[in-house]
Every structure is written in C-alpha cells, then in structure tokens.
C-alpha cells in the first residue's frame, strides 16, 4: 500500500517536471552564481548579461505556455517588442515619478491585456492549438509591420532609442552604472522566476497541467478551460511585456525586428534546448544559447544558425526535456549512486 502511494507520488513528480524541492535549490544556486559574476567578469559581460537574463525571462513566458499548458505561441517576440515600445514611449514622458517604473508596469499591463483579449477571443471558440500557433505567427508579422509602417510612433525601420532608467523611484534619479544595473535586472529576473514558479506550483498550475494532459477530462470536471488558457496566455503576456520593457531600457534600443518571426523562433529554440518543462531550464537555456550564439557566430558566422537548426530537430525528436532533463537525470543517477 505504502509503496503504491510512493510510486504515484514519484510519477506525479516526474509529470510535473523536475523535483519541486531540487529545482528551487538549483535555482537559488544559479541566481546566487549570477550575483557573484560581476566580481570577476569583464566590463562587456556585465554590460551584456542583463540582456541575456531578460531573454531568459522571455523564454520563461513561453515555457509557461508550452511546457506547462501545452499551447505554443509564435508571438512571444511581438509581446516582448510591445513591452519595449511602451517603455520607450513612457521614458519620453515627464512624470512626477520615475518614468521607468511606469514603463515597466505599462508595458506588462499592455502586453498582458493584449494577450488576454486575443487568448479569450480565440480559446472561447475552441480554436485548436495548431491554429493558435498560426494566429500568433500572424500576430508577430502584424506587429512587425505596424512597427515599421507607423514610424511617427515607433521610429519605423530605424527603431527607437530608449534611455536607461534610473533605479530610484523619484523622477530625477541618476543613471546607474553597469554593475548596479546588472544587479537590478538580476533581482528582477529572479523575482519573476520565483513568482511564476509559485503560481505554477499552486492550484492554477495544476489545472494548467491538467489541461495539457487531458482537456476533455478537465472540461468534464467543470473547469472553464478557455478561461484558464486565456489566463495562462495573459500571464505569459505580462511576463513577456515585463521582459521587453526592461530589455528596451537595458539595451537602449528597440527595432521592429524584435517583434518579428525570426526572433520568435529564437525564443522557441531557447526553450526547446533549455527544457520546456522547466522554468529554470528555459531561463538558463536562453542565457546559454544567446551567449554561445554571440561567441560562436563571431568565429563561424555562417554555420552557427545551421547548428542551432540541427540541434533543434534533435532535441524535438530525441530529447524533449532539453538541458533541464539532462541535469535531472544526472542528478538522479548521482542520487542512486549515493544510495547504493
């Protein structure tokens, strides 16, 4: 009897991805490591890593949909870019408080609301997940086109400069240096991770997993799956918008290509390689692939994307859990060795 209970629990653990306790530990370790990086990294790394962390946050917004809810969106880049443009517009305003924080809230709210509305509009009609992919793909194209054609608002092809925000809440704060900004973004990313993780570990996350595993059964239990799916997409929009607004002020620049299909593809590749069933995997995967891509494409510019494409196919066919799954199985193997 006892062993049955045990094995059920183990199975449900496996289903929900990495072991709950372990992942929190690994995540804490990972963020702690990132926190000490500025002590021995060079200036360029301190400058560029925050951007990769925000890519990581964007990747989490997709993992939450793909790995936890079972729907894939090709429009995450659009939501990211919208957050960025909203931030850019807010930074141009004169406000009694720090416009940066207004931009973050507005960017997240705008992307989240857009995702929620689109999500509800589609899911309430029972639009299939494959059609959802195509519609979000169209969303990326439409957003890019609007960003290009409405140049009075967005700066067109040339993009929009966004000043770096100050971290103090007042309107006249000083512009922080790279190290301070690094810590600011790190705290933000870690905060995002733990909040989303908390949400997913709770009741809401379990219902999403139920939808992923068996939609019909959840409907039979009386859950409004359209509402839950829309809420998941809205949450994902909020996170993508947050990441986008911070990215704009971190990199100092937003362009229409940030909204496009190719950037959305990048996000998909990060999440697939990092591991779609793990938020931390997606986050680390994005940081890893983005860093590798800037290093490797400096050496062999032509072949890097090709390697990424082949890797993507291999991960989809043979290695669905990605890097997070690899880490998990190595961890299990070590545990077994210890037990033996």
């Amino acid at each position, binding site marked *: 009897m006892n062993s049955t209970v045990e094995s059920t629990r183990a199975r449900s653990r496996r289903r929900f991805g990495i072991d709950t306790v372990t992942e929190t530990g690994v995540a804490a370790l990972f963020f702690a490591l990132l926190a000490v990086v500025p002590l021995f990294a060079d200036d360029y790394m301190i400058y560029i890593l925050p951007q990769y962390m925000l890519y990581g946050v964007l990747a989490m917004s997709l993992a939450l949909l793909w790995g936890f809810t079972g729907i*894939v969106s090709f429009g995450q880049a659009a939501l990211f870019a919208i957050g960025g443009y909203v931030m850019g517009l807010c930074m141009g305003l004169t406000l009694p408080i720090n416009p940066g924080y207004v931009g973050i809230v507005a960017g997240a709210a705008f992307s989240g609301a857009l995702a929620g509305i689109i999500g509800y*509009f*589609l899911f309430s*009609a*029972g*639009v*299939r*997940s*494959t*059609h959802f*992919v*195509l*519609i979000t*793909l*169209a969303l990326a*194209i*439409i957003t890019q*086109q*609007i960003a*290009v*054609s409405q140049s009075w608002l967005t700066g067109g092809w040339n993009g929009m400069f966004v000043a770096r925000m100050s971290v103090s809440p007042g309107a006249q704060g000083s512009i922080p240096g790279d190290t301070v900004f690094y810590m600011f973004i790190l705290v933000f990313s870690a905060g995002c991770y733990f909040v989303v993780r908390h949400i997913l570990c709770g009741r809401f996350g379990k219902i999403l997993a139920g939808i992923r595993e068996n939609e019909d059964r959840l409907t039979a239990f009386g859950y409004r799956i359209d509402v839950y799916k829309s809420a998941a997409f809205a949450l994902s929009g909020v996170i993508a918008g947050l990441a986008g607004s911070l990215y704009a002020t971190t990199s100092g620049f937003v362009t229409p290509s940030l909204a496009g*299909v*190719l950037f959305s*593809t990048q996000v*998909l*590749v990060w999440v*697939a390689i990092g591991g779609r069933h793990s938020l931390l995997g997606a986050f680390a995967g994005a940081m890893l692939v983005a860093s590798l891509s800037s290093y490797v494409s400096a050496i062999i510019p*032509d*072949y890097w*994307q*090709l390697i*990424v*494409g*082949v890797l*993507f*196919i291999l991960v*989809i*066919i043979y290695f669905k859990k990605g890097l997070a799954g690899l880490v998990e199985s190595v961890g299990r193997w070590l545990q077994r060795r210890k037990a033996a």
Partner: protein
Amino acid sequence: MDLAIQVAIDATLITLILALVAFGLAIIYGLIGVINLGHGAMLTLGAYFTWYCTAWGVPFVPAVLIAATGVGLAGLVFEHLVIRRFYDRPFETLLLTWAFFLIVTELIKILYGTDFKSVTNPVPQAFVIGDYRIPAYRSIVAGLSLVVIGSTAFVFYRTNVGIRVRALIQDRNVAALLGLNIALTYKIVFFAGSFMAGLAGALISPLLSIDPYMGNTFLVRSFFVVLVGGMGQLLSGTLVGAFITGGAETLFALFSSQAVAQTVVFVIAILILRFRPSGIMRPK
C-alpha cells in the same frame, strides 16, 4: 468602370497565383495533416534552384521542372528522415518543419549568400485587350495554376492513386488492414506537396526579388488560404481561400498601403478562423 475592370483583372491574377503558391500546403497540410511550416522554405528553395539553373544557361522551362523536382526530392528526404515517424503527432510536425525552414534557410545563405537574386522574366510582354494591358507572364502563371490545381483534383477524385490517398485520410488503420501501403502513400503525397511548392516557387521567381526569407511572407498567407478555404477541399477550398486573402488584399491596397492591406487581410482571416474554424467551403 475602367478601374473596376483593371482591379478585377489584378484580383483574378493574384488569386490564381496565390492559389498556386498555397497549393503545395493544401496537399501536405490539407490532406495528410502535417502542419508544414517549411512551406515557405520550399517556395524559396524552388526560386533559388530556378535562379541557379538559369544562371548556368538552362532555359526557363526545364529550369522550372528541375527546380520543382529538386524541391520534391528535398521534401522526400526530409519526410523519410524525420516526418514519417510523426504522422500521428501533428503538433510535433509543426516544430520539425519549422526546423526544416531554419536549416534550409541557413543552407541557402551558406551556398548562395544573402544578397538579392533575380530571374529574368521569360515573357516580358503584355497582352493588350482593348484598353487593358495584362502582363503576359502573370497570366500564363495564373493559367498554369488552374491547370495544375484542376489536374491534381482530377487525380485525387478520379483515379486509383486518388482513391488510395482518400482511403488513407479517411481511416489509416482500415486502409492499412485492407493492404494499402501506408508508408508509400504518405511519401507520394508528401512528394507531391513539396513538388507543387517548388513549382510555385520556381514560377513566381521572375516576379519578385529572391532572398533567403522570401518564402516567409507567403507562409502565413498560404496557411490562411488553406484554413479559410477549408482543409481537404483541394479545388474549391484553395481557390476560395486564395480569392478571399489575395483578392481582399488587392482591394484594400487600392485605398491604403500594401502593409496596411496585408494587416487587414490577416485580421479578416483570423476572424474567419474564429467564427468558421473549419473553413468557408466546409459544411459545419
């Protein structure tokens, strides 16, 4: 009045050309349910093969045939290596064909570079009927589109091969029990779809400038053509879907910019998908 006729001519040509562009997808996605996000890459590949052949001095018509066959074979190889294991998991095919797009695009970039290429228009003249000038090459492609779609529909509805394919779509297991070679039939359909995509890419290559991402703009449009028309409706669905997406774009482009027109058409297509999820030509 003049304007109306000119617009009608333009809309007809665009509808038929778009139908041809989407036809390969209508076969692969509409018939065997593989969500082929590599369709755009197949179009691009067809255009590049044509450019490459004509650059070597091959006349245009053989170049088009070589290009279409080449893309068909590329599709066949991809099917054999990857897709054939995933026919029962459509969602995975979506990701895998997207990877096909990534890989093909990168290979094109490595082999041919990223600069724009062009294929000279083999029939640059225009037909003049009364006051109207109709570009000759476009109308030839439009006519070919009708011929190709019509004859494929004939094969599909009136021949033994068509019966096999329809049996496969209707019930894979029963068809297999009755002795149909499932694996081979899938291969035939996949080859046919890739061939058609390559043919379309080859035929439209003189009409546009060729770059590694040229297929992308057609990818989403092609999907909307197939979905708006209704999956599995080879003849009527493709034509009606192409008319709604292509024709509407021509009309809207009249009084706004091309970009706005495309956006509006995408929105219309999304609305149709939302309210008629199985397409216009399919009974509810």
